[in-house]
């Protein structure tokens, strides 16, 4: 495999022990492999939101769109609809994707638009120094909820399944090799794909040990079977203690939005003549 340099001159400012390093390594490995398998790097666009996760686009020497908080998805959709031959990979945090920008995520899944969303789900706001997120467990004590949260987390994968996503997977920031494989599959999947990564925030919510005790790799699981997928997705509700499945949970073949969306042939119309013709008909 040819070695390509995917790094930039930006100084990495993630905390030591941050789970984002594993995601960065895994995406570098995935892009390198995809490139050697024939995907030109210039055909890839990375989109990120705002938060610790989002710095990833500064650390990758690939086309990128460093968006605003909660707004990774609509940007990614716009890029895909502008040129469907481009691979669009969105990175978002759990606050970004499941909080402020949730409406976009649901609609993108509903449309089954061919973009890949990689969620750095550390279940805490890091960059704003430790508040609860939509996936923090009930009773989480953050700086905005010192007495503990009074609301249960959402199960984002269950929500995405209900919304029409056609590829759902889970990884953690401990298992780089697994992440790389999932990333490659998600990027190559035609339709909306989402990878929820239990990424550990070493500073504000260190769950390394918690996850180590509970995660297991999916085996003998048929991701094409909706009810099997639903069962596995419901096995852990992001709150109660239970086994946490890693790997490809759900996958289906379905038409994607950009396929159904008629893309006009921009060359074939003389617009000046069309305007003139329209004006004539408006007398």
């Amino acid at each position, binding site marked *: 495999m040819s070695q390509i340099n995917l790094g930039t001159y930006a100084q990495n400012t993630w905390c030591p022990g941050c789970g984002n390093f594993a995601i960065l390594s895994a995406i570098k490995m995935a892009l390198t492999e995809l490139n050697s398998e024939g995907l030109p790097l210039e055909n890839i666009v990375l989109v990120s939101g705002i938060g610790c996760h989002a710095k990833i686009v500064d650390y990758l020497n690939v086309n990128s769109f460093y968006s605003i908080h909660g707004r990774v998805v609509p940007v990614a959709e716009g890029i895909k609809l502008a040129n469907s031959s481009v691979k669009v990979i969105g990175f978002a945090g759990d606050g970004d994707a499941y909080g402020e920008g949730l409406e976009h995520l649901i609609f993108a899944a509903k449309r089954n638009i061919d973009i890949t969303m990689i969620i750095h789900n550390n279940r805490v706001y890091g960059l704003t120094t430790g508040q609860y997120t939509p996936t923090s467990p009930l009773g989480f004590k953050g700086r905005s909820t010192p007495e503990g949260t009074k609301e249960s987390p959402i199960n984002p994968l269950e929500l995405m399944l209900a919304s029409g996503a056609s590829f759902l997977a889970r990884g953690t920031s401990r298992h780089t090799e697994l992440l790389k494989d999932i990333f490659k599959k998600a990027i190559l999947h035609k339709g909306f794909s989402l990878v929820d990564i239990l990424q550990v925030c070493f500073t504000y919510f260190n769950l390394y040990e918690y996850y180590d005790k509970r995660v297991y790799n999916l085996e003998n699981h048929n991701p094409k079977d909706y009810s099997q997928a639903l069962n596995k997705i419901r096995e852990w509700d992001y709150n109660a203690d239970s086994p946490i499945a890693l790997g490809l949970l759900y996958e289906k073949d379905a038409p994607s939005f950009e396929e159904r969306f*008629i893309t006009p042939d921009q060359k074939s119309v003389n617009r000046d003549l069309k305007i003139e013709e329209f004006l004539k008909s408006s007398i």
Partner: protein
Amino acid sequence: MNDFSVLIGGKAGFGIDKASNVIGRILNQTGRRVYIYRDYPSLIRGGHTFSIIRSSKNKVSTHLNKVEYILALNQDTFNLHKDKLSNSSVIIYDSDSVKLEGLSPEIKTLAVPVTRIIKEENVSEIMGNTCIIGAFIKACGIEWKVLESVFGKEFVKDMDSNLKVALRGYNEASELIKLEPFSENSLPLLTGNQALSLGLVKGGLKTFIAYPMTPTSPILHFLAEHADYFNLKVIHPESEIGVILMALGFSYMGEKVAVGTSGGGFCLMTEGLSFAGMGELPIVIIVGQRPGPSTGLPTYSAQTELHFVLNAGQGEFTRFIVAPGDLEETYFWSAWAMNLSSKYQIPSIILTDKNLGEGTFNFDAGSLPEIKEEMPVSWNRESPYKRYQNTESGVSPLALVPTKDAIIKVNSYEHDEFGLTTEEPNQTVLMQDKRLRKEKYLSRELDNFETVKVYGNINSSTSLLCWGSNKGVCVELAERLGLKVIQPVVLCPFPTRKFQDAVKGTKKLICVESNATGQLALLIKMFGFDVNEQVLKYDGRPFSLDELEKRIEGIVK
């Protein structure tokens, strides 16, 4: 009759809007100029809806308090508008449902049993509108074949029933006045929203994205309906936030893109607007004004968002704002909003309103200078690609995804020339200066345009100052009273020098605006100009010519 007006009214669902289009087109085809004002409440069925169709030998774009014809399909139309009749007026009415109580005996009446005809012909209630149109054209001596030709264009289905019902109305009526046709060539009749859409297409629009909101939804509808015709992508996403961010995705890819909304939707777009400023992403945003605050009067008109669009979005960045006052300006400046946005990589805002957007006017494309689509500066491949290369004009050459050897990085954080995040103080100043420098070059280019217009008696020392849709009423009144009119069309960057030239010799400057606080007066004050008087109207309705005349006369005397 050279100049006359027709008011047609009924419940929402009676097809009043359609009927006003048909009447407008019929009059247009007799070589007259036409203006249609539409008044409708925010509901789907019921309520009171009316349109005023004014027709004249010369172009008109304002309505009058008096009308020569009322076509009343229900009692409300008579009750609410009978004071608009004068002794030379005619009322044509559904004699089965309207009682003309308290009507001056001088006024001519024409009874048409509309409800009975609808029943006898066994057609839908909505065709009452075509029945009364039939009676109207007979009453003013317009040939039947003109109606036939307009029906052919306006009615896709039920053409035969419509013609049959119209003929019944025609036969019930008698000729009261003979309208002599004018020999002028007929001009296209368009709404402001249609002219705006065509202007965007002319300026190279490839993608239009919007979430429905009055009064700009008709742009979304028109472009969606004509997506194949003009080769466009038209998308209606989940929210206005989705709209603008999706548009910025298109913009990043080099597609010329516009979005449409009103004040409330624009509130949701402001974070994206600021990003367009920081990311240097071209985008055209149409803001159709209506009375606020908040939901306000959704189906009426206002000029309340001038300072909102001037100041919207956090931080300081270059933007272009234009407020066209008629169809020709709307078409021309919509195309140029696309061009300037693309050339300077900035957001352009087109400020319109319900009166201009949903009003119907004659459009004279022949009166406009040629418009060419402008293309952005491209990367020359001589040095490694930097999305935010610092140049003299502040505009960085573009490479678009996918380009081999070019890494294209856009960033909402302050960034270096390559597009990587920076918090370094010198770099911050360098990039802020780069972005703001574009305004100087944009202003310089705008010197070649008529950014401030002057009409009427240019030697008058009394001037009416107006912007946007008040142009029509101000110009007609100024011509009548011998006053001068000054209309800034571009509002940002403010054309200070041209404005100074325009106000030269003015002793009394009267600012006419459709808002409660005098937003244009406030703006020009920032540039050292004072108005002497303000004429403000903020009930959601446009000034009629007579109404404005009364208020101006009070000041001028």
